[in-house]
């Protein structure tokens, strides 16, 4: 489903040039749950952002379902992201001015679904995430765990093929962290491909495979369990 070919990302300022990713080659199969680990600054989030088309690589190729997408224009990138990729962030990234329902509804608005369908889909996903009773609440009225569930609901409401989670448990206590990981596992079991960046070895255990990055290089890969797909690197 996802493949990178010598992916490079170099950040340049007036004084310094930093290589965040250096010829990274990874391959993620459909239905797989992959964890990316490594020390701070090794390029985990950068890799996730490039995979999610939130950032551009400096060099290299990126394939999504066999199609090269690194050279996509802004409009193409938006269209691909829309409905195909869901994002979950450490800091939740909910919009303070919108309530729970509206935050979850947002990707459906941009997919131009009818109000009725949006309402039904949001209701379903809220019930699944057990936050339906908080539909009218605003983010600042929720606990961290509840906010992350809203963020999950927003990420899955459009039924994306791929969910990219950037340290989804980073801002949560252990109980809420475990709940979030269970949610991710459940989503994966339902068929969604997941790529997750994490610092926690315990949480990485939820994944089928862990890719370790160091200084912008893939250094090791570890298979935890059998993936539901046949082809593994």
């Amino acid at each position, binding site marked *: 489903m996802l493949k990178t070919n010598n992916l490079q990302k170099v950040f340049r300022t007036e004084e310094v040039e930093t290589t965040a990713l250096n010829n990274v080659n990874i391959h993620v199969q459909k239905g797989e749950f992959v964890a990316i680990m490594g020390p701070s600054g090794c390029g985990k989030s950068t890799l996730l952002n490039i995979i999610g088309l*939130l950032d*551009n690589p400096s060099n290299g190729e990126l394939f999504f379902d066999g199609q090269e997408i690194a050279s996509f224009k802004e409009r193409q990138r938006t269209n691909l992201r829309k409905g195909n990729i869901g*994002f979950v962030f450490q800091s939740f*990234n909910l*919009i303070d001015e919108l309530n729970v329902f509206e935050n979850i509804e*947002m990707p459906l608005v*941009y*997919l131009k679904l009818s109000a009725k369908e949006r309402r039904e889909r949001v209701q379903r996903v809220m019930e699944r995430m057990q936050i339906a009773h908080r539909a009218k609440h605003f983010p600042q009225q929720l606990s961290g765990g509840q906010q992350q569930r809203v963020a999950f609901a927003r990420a899955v409401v459009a039924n994306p093929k791929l969910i990219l989670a950037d340290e989804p448990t980073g801002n949560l206590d252990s109980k809420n962290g475990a709940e979030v990981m269970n949610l991710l596992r459940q989503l994966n079991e339902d068929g969604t491909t997941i790529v997750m960046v994490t610092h926690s070895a315990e949480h990485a255990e939820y994944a089928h495979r862990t890719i370790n990055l160091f200084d912008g290089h893939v250094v090791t890969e570890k298979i935890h369990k059998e993936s539901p797909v046949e082809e593994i690197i």
Partner: protein
Amino acid sequence: MKRAYRNILNNRFSTIIILISLSVGITCMCLVGVFVQRELATDGFHKYSDRIYALSCDDPFAPGSRMYFAREGAARYMQDNFEQVEDYCLVKSTITNRVFVDNNSFFDKPNTLSVSPNFFDFFSYQLVAGQSDKVLETENNVVLSEQLAEKYFGSASPLGQVIELEELMRPTKEAVKKQYVVTGVFRKPLANSHLQFDIITMMESGDSRAFIRLARDVERTEMEALLAANKEHIPVIHAGTQGTYYLESLSSNYFTHQRHSDAEITRDITDVYIALAIGIIIFLISIINYLSLLDNLLKMRERSFVIRRINGSSIGANISMMMQEVLLLVGVSMLLSGVIITLSLPFFNQLMHASISLDFMLHLNQVALVSIVFIVLLVISFVYVIISFKSSGIINLQALDKKKRNYAQFPVFRVFQIASSIVLIIASFTILKQLVYLNNKSLGLDKNVIVLTIPSKYYEQIDVFKQKLKSHACIKHVAGASSTPLMGHWMVKFHYSEGGKDKSYTPCGFSGDAEFVETLDLNLLAGKGFNVDGISNKEKCLINESLLKLFPNQDLLGEKLPGSDKEVVGIVKDFHYSNLMNFVGPAIIEYRDSHNHLLVKADVRKWNEANLLISKIWQEVIHDYPLDKLSLNERYNIIHAENKSFINLIAVCCFISIFLSMIGLFTTSLQMSLVRTKEIGIRKVNGATVMEVISLLTKGYSKWVVAAFIVAAPLGYYYMTSWLQKFAYQTELSWWIFIAAGMLAYIITMLTVAWQSFKVASQNPIKALRYE
């Protein structure tokens, strides 16, 4: 102060916007304030200005209105017979065609007044040479302005020098040359004076304007009652029934439409009010920009203020620090506006037909006005800082907990800014449309006719001039005239009896020779007009349709004009002869064979050739006078110049208003984009396109424009309908003007905010997500 300076430098963008907004607003307010102050204090510099009154009387030619006119002896009678009248001064405008000094002649047509000998004591015009009670001792004395004295005599003393004035006598315009001895030099007043003159001579006799000075504590109404009670004894112009005199205060003299003379200036008081209103609006727009940016500066500093407080600083010390920044910003803006005022003063004078000098700006009153503006700004800022401190978390130390800044948007004020711009756009479009309408309106005569004003010395050569012109193919017609439409006319009152009742009417009069009608291309509706031979025309006249309508049941053609011994030999279609603010009134055209004008109708295809020919023949016939030529079209434009000045004023104000409003909107859009950067990132991550983000960011501004339009459209309609009312002939206040104004405001607003919105919307979403 050093820290304040550093903080201001750190917020360069806000500082620049504040300085631009404030300095432009202060400049407009100060210029308009000084202008209004100067206009309202016109003639206030005279020592006795509160006791001096101009005499006016009922206008026999225009029932219901008054004219500034006093019969010879009227003012003297008042002083001799009423102890309430302390003194009087007569003033009469004369036409000086040229001035001879030694062997040089100057065709500068200086404004000349013939006045009573006490002129310089009665009024407070300042003499720089000569004594006020001696400069006009004899009728051969002349007093010059400093500028003319320097022009004629250079650095030599003008006193005792001899000059000759060639004066044109009224009503014949015959030139008379007279010798004068310079006995004084006066300084033109810095303050405004409704009398504008370059040369003063002594008045010998005759009717004139008259000013009287009342004794202390004498009320104007009391004096007017006294004059009315004694009206039988006081000479006054009238048309059968003796009228009375009225007293017009010196200050109100300036704001009247009833005088027309080169030596007097008038101003429509509405101009002053419009300038004041626009000045205040622009000042308010700039203050809104300033306050919104000040608010943002305060919000950006909330954290630092709280940290200072935690570390021992008092609230007062924080406010004092903020006020130092405010003082610096307002102070620099004042200095900048001083520079802008200096640079823009000539342009402002041109725009407002004013003559404000830099010296005048430095007078105590004007400095006081500028100081008031400065103090007002500081007080507003101080109050705003206090309110902001109270409403923010600075006082109760909560600002550290705030995660997000809420920048001020001031929606009501932003709507006010846009609405002001829309009203001014509507005004600009309407005035422009009216100007186009006036330019294109058929006047009922040919505006391309060239009018040559012949010096009286050459009246006998007019026929020679005429024949020389007519012998060329590029000249179609030439007519002699002494009163020409748009150039000037006389008025006459005809009395007649109808059904045993005495009646009268007052037509405007024009006079010319047999080719007058044809040259001007007047449309002869009935009759045959004047005979070419001229002799049999003496007792004949033409009338216009409006005059015919005064006698609906009579066929005047071939009959004597009621109240006159002239026979009507033709009826012409109504033609315009003055400002289009007035309807065409009754008019007659008399035949005359003595003229002071030549009307030339040239072949428009050979326009340049005709003009060269006119210059050439003028040189041959009238070699010692410069060519005095004006087309009726040029004259028409001069008459309507006021409208062009008005559109210039409104257009400039419109531009400034839009500029300031858009600076404010741009700042708001920039700040709002910053506040919403992260939200934009989240939306983009969730599938929003660039256009959808731009639409989201600009949606609020569309609402502002719609709200502003709803406010502005009725206001614009009301004010422009009132403005059009002063024209007898008005263009239609079309609906498209309003739509166009609204659309223009919308487009300008969207262009202003879209750039910043596009910048934010098209950036990499990950940058937006990282933004705090």
